[in-house]
């Protein structure tokens, strides 16, 4: 067991930022904390990294209690806070050396450790530049390099891709995936695609509580509510209400309504039962009515919908 959290709570005044949560993370897992801003993701991470002390509950990292031997826990963890902790007036190499020094990497091994991180994180072009001169994408890489300089067993990344442009996001995600192969990795995000792209497992957190826990696929199956179907027909002499009635009569279709209507076409929105496929029957029905189908699209509830469903207050 890499990380074990038991009945963890943290209050800011009367407000519970984290409310009695428990979970376990196995060695080698890539876990995503997903939740809206202010859900308690960062606070949980700050408690795991010993920056904050919980009001209640216990945290074990590699079976070491954070409240008993916080120094040993810190040694096991590499941490990239949400606000990337960079000294803008230092150059990249100096900064990484400083980070290695703080992690008590033996002085003889520091040049090797720094060199390795420069290679892994693709920093060789900018290694002599001041961090203040770097783009956001590079800064994020420097932050990641800092977090991993001592080759920690557990890596905790708080919103590692926030504020990056789409290309940089993909670069950082690939880097995270590469790193995640050898380590237990916890990352937080409020972006669905990120979790789907990188994580083995998702913890959806809302209002300081875990509202869902599982692989992205299992969550999709579990929360699959309904089928959303969009149907577009060419406008002709047939009566709309008649069509609506006809479509509603198809098996497994629960609801049908007209979404919009313009000169040439009518858009219908249909709702079907989960786990079914009604496209074929719709097609046959339309053909039998001698109408022309311009479009048909069927969509199952996505992780994004689940997220919205679980976290909208």
């Amino acid at each position, binding site marked *: 067991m890499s990380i074990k959290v038991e009945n963890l709570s943290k209050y800011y005044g009367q407000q519970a930022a984290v409310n009695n949560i428990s979970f376990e993370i196995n060695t080698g897992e890539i876990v995503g904390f997903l939740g809206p801003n202010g859900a308690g993701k960062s606070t949980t991470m*700050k408690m795991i990294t010993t*920056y904050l002390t919980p009001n209640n509950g216990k945290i074990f990292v590699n079976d070491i209690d954070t409240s008993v031997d916080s120094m040993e826990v810190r040694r096991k963890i590499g*941490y990239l806070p949400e*606000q990337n*902790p960079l*000294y803008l007036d230092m150059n990249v190499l100096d900064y990484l050396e400083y980070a290695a020094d703080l992690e008590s990497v033996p002085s003889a091994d520091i040049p090797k450790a720094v060199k390795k991180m420069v290679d892994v994180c693709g920093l060789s072009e900018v290694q002599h530049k001041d961090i203040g001169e770097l783009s956001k994408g590079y800064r994020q890489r420097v932050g990641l390099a800092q977090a991993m300089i001592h080759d920690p067993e557990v890596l905790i990344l708080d919103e590692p891709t926030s504020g990056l442009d789409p290309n940089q996001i993909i670069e950082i995600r690939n880097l995270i995936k590469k790193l995640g192969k050898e380590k237990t990795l916890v990352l937080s995000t409020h972006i669905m695609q990120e979790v789907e792209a990188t994580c083995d497992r998702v913890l959806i957190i809302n209002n300081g509580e875990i509202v869902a826990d599982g692989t992205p696929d299992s969550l999709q199956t579990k929360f699959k509510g309904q089928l959303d179907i969009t149907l577009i027909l060419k406008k002709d002499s047939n009566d709309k209400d008649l069509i609506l009635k006809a479509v509603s009569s198809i098996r497994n279709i629960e609801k049908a309504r007209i979404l919009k209507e313009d000169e040439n076409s009518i858009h219908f929105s249909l709702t079907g039962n989960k786990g079914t496929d009604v496209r074929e029957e719709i097609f046959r029905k339309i053909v039998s009515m001698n109408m022309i189908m311009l479009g048909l699209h069927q969509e199952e509830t996505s992780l994004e919908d689940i997220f919205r469903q679980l976290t909208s207050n």
Partner: protein
Amino acid sequence: MKNILTIFKKELRSYFNSPVAYIVIVVFLIITGWFFTSNLFIGGVVTMRNVFDIIPFIFLFFIPAISMRTFSEEKKSGTIELLLTKPISDMDIVLGKFFSTLTLTAIAIAFTLFYVVSLTFLGPIDTGSIIGAYIGLLLMSGVYIGIGIFASSLTENQVVAFIISFLIVFGLFLLNKVLVFLPTELASILEYISVDYHFSNIARGVIDSRDIIYYLSGITIFLLLTRTSLESRRWS
């Protein structure tokens, strides 16, 4: 110990990487230099007296100015989270920053040794009181720096940190000056608390253990307060 050294080296380097250290040292030397030369050429007296009298006053501004960034900047830029999640104790961080700021101050003070050296060519100097004054200056700046670092740990705003540390330091400095207006029992207590009183003792060349204890305990109290202030993040 190694951790303190790591922080110490990084802090000292960042002082000299920014213009702050140079500006502050230059201003310090201009002011002390003016008091030294005016005394020497206008007064015609071979003494460091005026310089040592003015330094505690300059330090009222000088030390809050150099120590205001120690923790405020880390809080503002978020790097404090880096330091506090690395396997080093809060006290190591505080001590590393304390000694680096003390070193910068000592460097500034060391430049005034040129004045002493030039005096030796002009006439006999009172070696004992000069050595005493230097020891006293270092101890006194230690207390000021402790206060400055503590103020800096309270806020992420450097200006606020400067004002807080200036007010505390100025208060301690002023105590000695208002004694005449106070009843004697209270006056003797306040006199003991006053930084300036102990400095004038040591600057006479009399190194009394009471004065040393006063300074060392002052430093210790403010460094412990700083550590407490860092730890307070956990309770909030």
